[in-house]
């Protein structure tokens, strides 16, 4: 079951303007850098992007914002991005803010064939407006629905030709759920190995969720908040 495509060009073929795209990552950690740069090159516009964050001004999804390629962002946290704030406050950009846990669970639900579920998150806030409320265990919960996307683009540390993926440390974050929820899921990996080289016990995303895989050309892996301490 060979899922390998040559590069980001072949990997992202078929993505068109006005589509809905999920992108893995938390901040700049674990984002599909090569695919984002390809989206810039492709010049597709009117995108609805589902991603926990919106990058920074000159990296990550910020690059798509600069080019006004995004019509709508579905995210949980969008600070650290001036251009984003400007477009949002001016009304150029639609923004749907979702509690982070609900965002993660809604993506998982989309991939898992669960069309809706109840969660306590957001009850009593504007997030709950128009949503069904039901009490369980003496506590109000709201009904949230699944999220899916035309394409999901995820970034993994290692992947094999069958599409199995392994993430590194906290670069895992939203990638596994989004991989499940794409009608077509594209994985860019730092290292692509033949099927059989990954230990089947240590794979995070089974290849069944991945339709295309390629090794990224170059990973800058920019750090957003470099915090360190001195050796004594």
């Amino acid at each position, binding site marked *: 079951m060979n899922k390998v495509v040559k590069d980001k060009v072949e990997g992202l073929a078929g993505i068109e303007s006005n589509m809905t795209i999920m992108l893995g990552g*938390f*901040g*700049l*950690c*674990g984002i599909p850098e090569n695919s984002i740069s390809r989206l810039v090159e492709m010049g597709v516009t009117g995108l609805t992007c589902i991603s*926990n964050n919106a990058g920074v001004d000159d990296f990550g999804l910020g690059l798509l914002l600069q080019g006004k390629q995004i019509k709508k962002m579905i*995210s*949980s*946290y*969008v*600070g*650290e991005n001036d251009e984003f*704030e400007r477009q*949002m*406050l001016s009304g150029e950009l639609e*923004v749907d*803010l979702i*509690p*982070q*846990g*609900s*965002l*993660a*669970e809604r*993506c*998982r639900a989309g991939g898992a064939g669960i069309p809706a579920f109840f*969660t*306590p*998150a*957001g*009850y*009593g*806030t*504007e*997030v709950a407006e128009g949503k069904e409320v039901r009490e369980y265990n003496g506590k109000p919960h709201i009904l949230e629905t699944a999220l899916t996307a035309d394409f999901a683009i995820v970034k993994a*540390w290692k992947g094999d030709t069958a599409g199995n993926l392994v*993430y*590194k*440390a*906290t*670069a*895992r*974050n*939203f*990638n*596994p*759920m989004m991989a499940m929820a794409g009608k077509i899921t594209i994985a860019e990996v730092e290292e692509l190995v033949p099927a059989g080289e990954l230990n089947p016990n240590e794979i*995070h995303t089974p290849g069944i969720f991945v339709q295309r895989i390629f090794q990224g050309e170059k990973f800058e*892996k*920019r*750090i*957003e*908040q*470099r*915090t*360190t*301490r*001195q*050796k004594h």
Partner: protein
Amino acid sequence: MSLDKTGIAKRIAQELRNGWYVNLGIGIPTLVANYIPEGIEVEFQSENGILGMGPFPFDGEEDADLINAGKQTITAMDGAVYFDSATSFAMIRGQHVQLTVLGAMEVSQDGNIANWKIPGKMVKGMGGAMDLVASADNIIVAMMHSNKAGVSKMLKECSLPLTGVGCVKKVVTNLAVLDIKDGKFHLVERAPGVSVEEIVTATAGDLVVPNHVPEMKI
């Protein structure tokens, strides 16, 4: 003399109990990790996908793939584990995390909290805060008692869009420790050298003041 941020963190650290899993928000809450009382072992969960978060890395040892929810480079302790965001919030929503400490712009006397949006001005998003406050049984808010303009953040009702309702039970500020119950703030402790009057003045919501208000021990 009111507490600085470090003082608030130190006081909150006294609330830690052995064996707890703890989620610390961005800002003052993060500092709590530096003041774990002796003999207490806790493990820190960061909602982007690590349990067993350690201190910042040594210079030159940063790993772009290992950050906390504040996007800061971190390290992992022995026994740490990485997981995806759905699992992370399964821990939070499923009440496996014993304590959540987070900041706020406003807290009301019925336990409501607002910390994610100023309409028309600032919209950063709620991140994981709505899940955290809706799920946790044990939430401590760490904040300054008043904002920079001197306006109380301890209100009868929140004026900003809410993050959660009826969820805050304890607030530690630069002036005091307050419990929230029966729809009122209750003064529990005052910061060293801070008078009850100062706290009463700085609290816009209803405040129950007992006869004796002990001073925090920090």
